[in-house]
């Protein structure tokens, strides 16, 4: 097994969720079957964006929010590469929100891993676009006025073909989601709940506590009933919305089965709206996994079509095209 660790010393705060994600990622890369020289990690700015330094692949630690744009140019011009974007909730959803939605909309062949700790870590503790309303921080002493983004809903709204959510501490689940994201051709978006021990410690504790998590986690598995623990499940409401009901009350047959391959993103979107951000029941797993042509494929097709119909470009004849005249 190839070692994907770089020689750089990892520098995150003790207890940071990034360590777990890095370990899972380094463990998963060898099974990706792609030589390390064909893997490129591009990040923006933030704690998570230090990621590329710790991997022995190609990488670029770029500028705040712009990693999806930079990755777009790379992926569109180098379809042979496996391109990963590492970003955080501030980087990806605040300053870089525009680039993120457009990369997903275009279906650029990249895998976006968004580490969501619902706080600004690197700038020391201000509220982020995923912080709950009313969050008290250094920049919001009376509570944040902002309404938070649900990153999964946002990605589905941009019609990303692959959208998933997982948790830093569940290495098995995290690895399986990474694997599926890598297998997906086109833009993949993975939200990873990630703990910030310094500024937002235990934000996801209810989802991690073994005693509690089974009553909260809605595990999405294609073809399987949408259950929370043994007793509750997802049912269709009166207006087409999804809700959670006691199976004892509604009967087993009304519990919906998960279908990640529906062409229409509506079902996945409805699932993503289940209970954010209170954590009473949180869907994790693959919301949507639908293939469509990727941006680089479409771009390459146009180039080969142009060459097939017009012939390869020839500089001398291009320069001499149009109305010309000769002076003897």
């Amino acid at each position, binding site marked *: 097994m190839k070692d994907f660790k770089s020689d750089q010393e990892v520098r995150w705060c003790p207890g940071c969720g990034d360590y777990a994600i890095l370990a899972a990622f380094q463990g998963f890369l060898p099974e990706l079957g792609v030589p390390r020289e*064909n893997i490129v990690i591009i990040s923006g700015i933030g704690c998570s964006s230090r990621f*590329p330094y710790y991997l022995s692949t190609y990488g670029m630690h770029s500028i705040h929010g712009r990693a999806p*744009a930079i990755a777009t140019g790379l992926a569109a*011009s180098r379809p042979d590469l496996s391109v990963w974007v590492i970003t955080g909730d501030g980087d990806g959803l605040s300053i870089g929100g525009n680039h993120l939605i457009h990369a997903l909309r275009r279906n650029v062949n990249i895998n976006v891993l968004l580490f969501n700790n619902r706080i600004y870590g690197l700038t020391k503790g201000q509220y982020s676009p995923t912080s709950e309303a009313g969050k008290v921080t250094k920049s919001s002493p009376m509570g944040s006025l902002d309404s938070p983004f649900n990153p999964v809903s946002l990605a589905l709204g941009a019609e990303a073909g692959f959208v998933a959510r997982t948790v830093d501490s569940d290495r098995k689940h995290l690895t399986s989601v990474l694997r599926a994201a890598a297998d997906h051709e086109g833009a993949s978006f993975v939200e990873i709940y990630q703990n910030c021990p310094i500024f937002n410690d235990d934000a996801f504790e209810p989802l991690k506590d073994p005693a509690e998590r089974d009553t909260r986690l809605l595990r999405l598995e294609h073809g399987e009933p949408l259950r929370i623990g043994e007793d509750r499940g997802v049912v269709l409401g009166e207006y087409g919305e999804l809700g959670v009901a006691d199976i004892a009350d509604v009967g087993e047959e009304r519990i919906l089965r998960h279908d990640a391959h529906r062409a229409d993103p509506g079902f996945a979107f409805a699932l993503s709206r289940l209970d954010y951000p209170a954590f009473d029941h949180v869907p994790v797993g693959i919301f949507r996994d639908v293939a469509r042509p990727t941006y680089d494929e479409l771009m390459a097709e146009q180039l080969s*079509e142009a060459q097939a119909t017009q012939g390869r*470009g020839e500089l*001398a004849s*291009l320069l001499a095209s149009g109305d010309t*005249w000769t002076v003897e």
Partner: protein
Amino acid sequence: MTKQVQQLDRVIIRFAGDSGDGMQLTGDRFTQETASFGNDLSTLPNFPAEIRAPAGTLPGVSSFQLHFADHDIMTPGDAPNVLVAMNPAALKANIDDLPDNAIVIVNTDEFTKRNLAKVGYDTNPLEDGTLEGFKVSPVPLTSMTVKALESFDISKKDAQRAKNMFALGLLSWMYNRPTEGTLGFLKSKFAQKPEILAANLAAFQAGWNFGETTEDFAVSYEIKPARLAPGTYRNITGNVAISYGLIAGSQLSGLPLFLGSYPITPASDILHELSKHKRFGIRTFQAEDEIAGVGAALGAAFGGSLGVTTTSGPGMVLKAETLGLAVMTELPLIVIDVQRAGPSTGMPTKTEQADLLMAMFGRNGESPVPVLAPRSPSDCFDIAIEATRIATTYRTPVIVLSDGYLANGSEPWRIPDVGGLPDLSVNFTTEPNGPDGEFLAYQRDPETLARPWAVPGTAGLEHRIGGIEKSSGSGDISYSPSNHDLMVRSRQAKVDGIARDLQPLEVDDPTGDARVLVLGWGGTYGSIGAAVRRVRRAGGKVAQAHLRYLNPFPANLGEVLHSYDRVLVPEINLGQLALLLRARFLVDVIGYTKVRGLPFKAEELAGVVQEVIDRAE
């Protein structure tokens, strides 16, 4: 009736009308006819930023000026000898630019009470003596066109719309232009609309015949072809020339071209042009914003493409942060800023050269970037190739400062022999360069100070780059004070070192004893050159030099500046180059600045030059 043909050596014609009247098309066609006839020429399109300002109003006036001659010329001309005014607004907006005895062809049909009132004419200028001193030809262009098209199955509106072709036909007759090109153009433009095609051809022909038959036009004019250097020529605008230069740069370097761009006036035509040439393997990416445009270009450069982004002033501002990253990552990147009047949105369709200091310094930290500026539409081709050479040789972003005047203006271009273009082939690094078989991403070439360019996919050279300061050699993150000092100085030295392979600045000083030098940069070359010629014809002694390299400056610039008593620096800004020259060379240059959204007029500049000469004596 045999009409008289009068020989002229040059003429300046301005077509002016409402922005819906098709004046740019008319001007462009007349230019193509003139180019194929073999005159030297230079054009100045001037149009409003609004797509359709209210019809018949002053803000809605669109014009196209063409200067053509039997000898080589440098500018679109100061004052039109001929004005074609399609309505009162066009007359009013342009009349002040006309010299005495200018020919004014007016479309009388549009001189209605209502149209006159719209632009504040209390009385009809065709009747009240306003046009005294001009040779006025009143022509009912609209009604004659409609009459000529009576038999066609088209709407009255379509018939009226063809009046620009009538005007073009008339002018083509007046100046003995070849018409095959325009006929062919119309046939292909309206191939899908046979009735409209027939009507336009008929309108064009009717205009020609009108000139031929009416006694109002007793004279036609002939301007012999110019004696240009032998070769094959075509007419070219700056934006097309930049596009071709980039394609050439891609072919000569062997790097696939990737353009990341966001539409903005007046740069958009480069995006449009490059999008047409996918057969050259060119990828054009219309990004969600300016930042994504340059970001994608940088990402493509990391992957081994010739990364290019094109923009204009306000877009350039947004790209600043990514340019800083390109400086830090030391990747090749070409950034084309087609300058326009600013600040902020400024005047989007009007020219200016006021982005020089932004290009030089508009980034955080010590962030040196080479800056080049083409001096004419055809020079845009050579500058794009030169930008490719510098970017790939030195692994650096390069800024090209074109401007709206160069971008839209056109001139004859001698098509270069492809075999004579420089070889720019690039060798990516494929082998480790460290003593222990490792790859040192910031190990500099001792000559150029460029770092190696190893692209993803190359086994054994995996490395990480980014915006955080790099350790010299390894490229690992470094906060070491001495390393930062070294790296800041190394990046500067790398850019300064480019001057070593630049040609020395040429000075045009025919008598060899001029005491005044006129020094310009970029798109003002033609105006300054024409002004200098005028001064010399009048017996004045003056030297001229023009900068295409703004950073670094040519190595002999200081010496050149110090060898003249006075240095005059005309600029379409408030003295940005003058500021740099004073700071760098301690020379008390004399600035001459004007920011009207228009190029300098040669006559006015000639006066300024003469004044400086007089004061020097």
